């Protein structure tokens, strides 16, 4: 086991990693920007090193400053958390060449799975279902028509150079294809300077369901079931749960095994998540892989009674996985709400500032992962996640009832938070019935309906 781990992150995840390290008897080093002088993670860690000014590029995203901090404190490993440098293959490589263990998969795997088309190719090789579509650029509308005919409509034309939900056109039937093809090319040229398109099957009412993986460096890998992550706003997850209301035991086994197969095929180890899109007929398609620990990992921890960060540290230190797939038993239901410092009545505008009073919920099956305390001043420089509220219940009904109770107890004053928004969402018929997809939030959200 490592003697000392440097946590290259901030906020709640830094505290989460420090907690796991402490329980394993590992010393911890926190890094912080000048803006984070009073941040809780600097207090929880055994040592803290100031690495730069507030801007992320000169602090939390700065590989050399972070590695220097590891060198001067004698840390033998770095945990990157999520975001920042967690999926930066160059950073992982730098750590390795400085003889510091990067807690995560190898740089090569990070690089391979970070490239969306490489990732898709790898999964196809492994026999994992991917979203059907062209393997490369489609040059003519005849080519598009042929592929669309093979896959079936609806299809979506996407700009190769696009992103952020831009440069996409849905085509529902063949007669609209030629026209849309021309317009999509023109739009792509105008927006991205590159008219090239590719084509994919368009999944109607998709649900975003991901599989948690854990593998050691000796070829052993297990999956810890799925997380339902369809409740999103602008592609940002808001509420996650495990298990998913629509996934059967049989489908879980199939998806889990597919994810494990795909990950092993690329030589993956450590914690990771394979994201799938699931359509209304319960067909699942590989979307992408996240080669890091995720924000929503606690819901899996609650259901499977596994400390994923401790496991991540152990496998990074070369230990063999002690948990066997057939030993893993899901128990109960867990839901997480991401609480952000944003004003839900004002288009979710960020709300930094001083937290004047703070009370976090407690009681059975209630967990809060947060770095906030009363009198803490939330800086405007970093993301707006201030707390994760996670509940566990013996079934989905109890979990929801517990979540409602816990949200009522949660006091954060001095800033605006999304707590009222969560209270509203979990009362909707769609949420209660489990009948929702990734379009849920945009469909039901009306700011007048929220009681502040």
């Amino acid at each position, binding site marked *: 086991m490592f003697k000392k781990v440097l946590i290259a992150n901030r906020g709640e995840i830094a505290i989460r990693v420090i907690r796991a390290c402490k329980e394993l008897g590992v010393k911890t080093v926190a890094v912080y920007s000048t803006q984070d002088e009073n941040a809780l993670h600097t207090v929880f860690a055994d040592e803290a*090193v*100031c*690495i*730069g000014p507030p801007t992320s590029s000169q602090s939390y995203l700065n590989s050399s*400053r972070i590695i*220097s901090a590891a060198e001067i*404190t004698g840390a033998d490993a770095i945990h990157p958390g999520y975001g920042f440098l967690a999926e930066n293959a160059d950073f992982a490589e730098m750590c390795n060449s*400085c003889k510091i263990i990067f807690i995560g998969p190898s740089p090569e795997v990070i690089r391979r799975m970070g490239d969306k088309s490489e990732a898709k190719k790898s999964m196809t090789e492994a026999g994992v279902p991917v979203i059907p579509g062209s393997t490369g650029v489609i040059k003519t509308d005849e080519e598009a028509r042929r592929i669309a005919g093979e896959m079936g409509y609806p299809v979506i034309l996407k700009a190769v150079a696009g992103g952020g939900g831009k440069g996409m056109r849905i085509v529902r039937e063949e007669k609209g294809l030629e026209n849309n093809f021309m317009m999509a090319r023109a739009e792509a040229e105008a927006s991205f300077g590159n008219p090239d398109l590719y084509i994919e099957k368009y999944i109607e009412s998709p649900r975003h369901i991901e599989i948690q993986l854990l593998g050691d460096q000796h070829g052993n890998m297990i999956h810890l079931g799925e997380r339902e992550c369809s409740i999103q706003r602008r592609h940002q997850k808001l509420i996650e749960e495990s298990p998913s209301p629509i996934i059967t035991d049989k489908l879980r086994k199939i998806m889990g095994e597919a994810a494990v197969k795909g990950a092993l095929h690329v030589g993956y180890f450590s914690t990771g998540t394979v994201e799938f899109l699931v359509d209304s007929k319960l067909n699942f398609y590989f979307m992408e892989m996240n080669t890091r620990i995720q924000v929503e990992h606690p819901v899996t921890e609650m259901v499977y009674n596994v400390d994923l960060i401790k496991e991540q540290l152990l496998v990074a230190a070369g230990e063999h996985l002690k948990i066997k797939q057939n030993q893993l038993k899901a128990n109960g239901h867990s839901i997480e709400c991401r609480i952000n410092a944003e004003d839900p009545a004002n288009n979710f505008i960020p709300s930094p500032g001083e937290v004047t009073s703070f009370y976090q919920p407690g009681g059975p099956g209630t967990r809060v992962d947060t770095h906030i305390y009363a009198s803490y001043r939330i800086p405007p420089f970093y993301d707006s996640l201030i707390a994760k509220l996670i509940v566990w219940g013996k079934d989905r009904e109890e979990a929801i009832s517990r979540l409602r109770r816990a949200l009522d107890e949660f006091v954060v004053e001095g800033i605006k938070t999304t707590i009222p928004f969560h209270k509203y969402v979990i009362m909707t018929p769609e949420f209660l019935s489990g009948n929702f997809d990734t379009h849920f939030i945009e469909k039901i959200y009306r700011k007048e309906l929220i009681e502040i």
Partner: protein
Amino acid sequence: MKFSEIKQLIKVVEKSDIGEIEIVEEGSKIRISKNSSMKQPPVFTQMDVTGIPQSIPPQVLVQGSPAPTIPLAQAAAAEEKLEKASSPMVGTFYRSPAPDADAYVEIGDHVKVGQTLCIIEAMKLMNEIQSEVNGTIRKILVENSQPVEYNQVLFLIEKD
């Protein structure tokens, strides 16, 4: 703290209502008590309670904690005038280009803008840290081969 600063401090304490002031800064502590009819610090026992109030001024007895009063500000001002040369990076501080070479600067040296003050080593690369002012080195706050963090003050320089 310079002797001239201490003299100034004593003068100001004499003129004010402050009975006692104590200032603690890096490596030094100074306490100045005013001569009053009480030679000993007040001992609060049952019997003495009645006798004490007269000689202690009604104001707060400043002791140990820096209060926002004029003398403290004046004492700190002298050091405030010194330019802080802070580390722009994380690494290990070295006073000279090589273990057996002379230090780049010593206390009392005059330095110009752009002149190398020290080296900070990070990830096996040596980075020369340059002065941003013309002035005289008054204090060196870190030791050779000491780890330093971002913004840590390395030198105090009296500007020309």
